[in-house]
């Protein structure tokens, strides 16, 4: 079985697994405890903060550990909205966002905030001018993802950041960096982003830990209270093993970024070309997108059917972002790009990692060919 779902969850590095095990055995003390063992656990977290900060070119006190990127995104959006509601009650985001951003914004809308969901072009890329045009004097926050989790398009964050600050310099900028980190350069200063979410388990780290960068000068209204953990921004006993191993994954994936790109881009391009040549399939990813995501639709065939067929042929793929894949609805992302409902129902995401080789890609191509051949007879009959 070949695993092609790195964008949903990447297998942890061996070193990460070892670190988690060793720390769970040795450092079970509560980092808030005053005794020696507690202080040592706290020291591990401090060091992890330094390692993450160095990898992201920020200050250690700007790193906040959470339970995952979903919490990071929730905290960034709701925490900023609640903290700065005196500035206004308007938020700008895009129709491409991950559900944890999208739903957070919708929740705020239910509470009376106004939310502008900017649509992307048919390319799946948002025009910075559209974001800037949506900014108002009372816009508290803009949230835009770095790389779309479904189709892998890269958003022009530098231009978006410039546009935001040119209209309203007090508007905060949150970047959901989950699919970008370790594949593309992370340049928070250049983007002028105050908030940045990261998910270690997408970069071969452990599950259950997330990172939120909160740049100095930005405050968040805590969503979890009950202790002064994480500088009072997020209560809860720290997951020491997860935090240390996350720092390791952030460091390693950051260091290996260029190698990974060099490895994945040719693989991705050959898959893109192969799929483009199959008349039944429509590509949704682009060559200027992230190096690890290839997304296509099989109009007239439900994505899940093709996914099951591919699984039978030994290939594990996703239909779309894992967080939405249980929904039997057309993809919101594809619809926002102007795809029709059959195409938006038939999406398949292949996501690559460092284990994949040209030989694996060849096997995947053969499996795709075989799957489409065998499903072709039922094409259109599945609606």
């Amino acid at each position: 079985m070949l695993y092609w779902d790195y964008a949903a969850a990447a297998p942890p590095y061996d070193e990460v697994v070892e670190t988690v095990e060793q720390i769970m055995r040795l450092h079970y003390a509560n980092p808030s405890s005053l005794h020696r063992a507690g202080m040592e656990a706290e020291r591990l977290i401090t060091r992890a903060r330094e390692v993450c900060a160095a990898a992201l070119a920020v200050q250690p006190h700007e790193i906040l550990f959470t339970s995952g990127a979903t919490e990071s995104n929730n905290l960034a959006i709701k925490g900023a909205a609640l903290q700065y509601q005196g500035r206004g009650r308007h938020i700008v985001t895009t129709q491409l966002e991950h559900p944890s951003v999208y739903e957070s914004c919708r929740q705020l809308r239910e509470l009376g905030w106004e939310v502008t969901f900017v649509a992307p072009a048919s390319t799946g890329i948002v025009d910075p001018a559209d974001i800037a045009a949506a900014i108002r004097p009372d816009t508290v926050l803009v949230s835009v993802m770095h790389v779309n989790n479904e189709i892998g398009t890269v958003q022009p964050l530098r231009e978006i950041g410039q546009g935001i600050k040119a209209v309203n310099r007090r508007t905060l900028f949150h970047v959901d960096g989950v699919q970008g980190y370790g594949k593309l350069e992370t340049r928070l200063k250049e983007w002028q982003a105050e908030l940045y979410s990261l998910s270690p388990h997408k970069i071969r780290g452990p599950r259950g830990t997330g990172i939120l960068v909160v740049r100095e000068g930005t405050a968040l209204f805590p969503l979890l209270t009950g202790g002064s953990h994480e500088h009072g921004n997020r209560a809860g006993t720290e997951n020491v093993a997860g935090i240390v191993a996350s720092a390791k994954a952030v460091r390693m994936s950051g260091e290996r970024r260029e190698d990974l790109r060099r490895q994945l881009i040719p693989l991705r391009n050959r898959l893109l070309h192969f799929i483009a040549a199959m008349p039944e399939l429509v590509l949704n990813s682009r060559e200027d997108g992230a190096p690890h995501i290839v997304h296509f639709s099989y109009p007239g065939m439900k994505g899940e059917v093709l996914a099951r067929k591919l699984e039978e042929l030994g290939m594990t793929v996703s239909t779309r972002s894992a967080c939405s894949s249980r929904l039997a609805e057309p993809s919101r992302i594809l619809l926002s790009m102007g795809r029709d409902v059959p195409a938006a129902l038939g999406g398949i995401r292949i996501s690559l990692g460092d284990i994949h080789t040209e030989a694996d890609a060849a096997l995947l191509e053969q499996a795709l060919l075989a799957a489409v051949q065998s499903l072709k007879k039922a094409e259109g009959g599945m609606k």
Partner: protein
Amino acid sequence: MKDIENGFADESGPGTTRSIEYADMLLLRFGEFTLKGKNRSRFEKTVLRHVKEMIRPFPKVTLSKEFGRIYVQLNGEPAEELADVLRNVFGIASISPVKVSLSDFDDILAVSQNFLRIAAPPAGTTFKVNVRRVWKEFPYGSIEMNKLISTPLLQSYPGLLVDVKSPQMELRIEIREGHTYIFCENIAGVGGFPLGTNGKAMLLLSGGIDSPVAGWSSMRRGLEVECVHFYSFPYTSELARQKVVDLTRVLSRYAGVIKLHLVPFTEVQTSFTGIGQDNLIITLMRRAMLRIATRLAEREGALALVTGESLGQVASQTLSSMNVIGRATPLPLLRPLVMMDKSEIVELSKTVGTYDLSILPYEDCCTLFVPKSPTTNPNLRIVDKIEATLPGYSALLDAAVAGTETVTITPYGDEKPSDVVPAQAGLQEEWF
């Protein structure tokens, strides 16, 4: 509503601050000691050594020195971070981010025009070009060049007003053999004397707000400091000791390296609690500290003690207390903060970078065993008598000096003192 409107206002000044992002070089100028005749070359060498120490995290940087200046070639290292580090080097009066062009008229003009576009001064900014021709073979003289450069600049960037007396923006161009330096911004350095050029002193470092600032002030005047910290485990925690290590590490950013002496003070301190003179405990304790620090100073070749005392701040810092306490040492007792207000000290500690550490809520030995009403007016005769009759007093001081641990702290190192309580699992760097 007013608040929101402010959000749109551009608060930055006449745009010059942005020139740093495009610099290829930083020009460092020496401070007041340029006036001092014979010591000059020693002072300049000290600054250069300090600069070298500070640029260690930036391996691509190269340095060159000439009269009154140091040139820092960035070679791709970040200008802003370097300027932040180097402005803290004592003896440096100012820093200019420099854009380098060839010493060729067309190139100088093109780079100047680009420079102006990047600096983007708003319309109405008063402006002046100031050319210095150091390389006399360049075909145009300084005065001639002022005109030749400023005329096309003013044409291509309308909205600037010429003011040769006191311009808001002065574009300076230095033509040298091979290269020409173009700059306009002056970032103030911290000034003072090069590190260690005025001798060495022992700093009594408690972990509060004042003593680190006193240490920084001393270093700025060219004193080399070694820190002395008194700890009273188990009355004070490991965290308090770690805090002092961290504070010393912040100070070491200004010095490259600092020695920290950790004195076990529990026995000395507790010997004062049983004598029935609770209001004198602080006085006795401070005197004991000065005595121990004096011994360490003699051992280390330091010629003074530095404290963070500020007149009248607490009972032990009244003039009477200072008089009685200060007599415990024959060394000069330097109190850089003695006439400063607390709020000024707090501001300085934020600038120095020690404030956030200083306010961590760990008890140190100065806040231990504090009596309800410590005396503000101790009687020297009584204090002398108590000390003379305290059984084993000098042996206790000897033991404290003998038990002192010395750690050498560097800005980016992880040196730490040995543990009072044995370590548990510890931190393994391979986990990260």
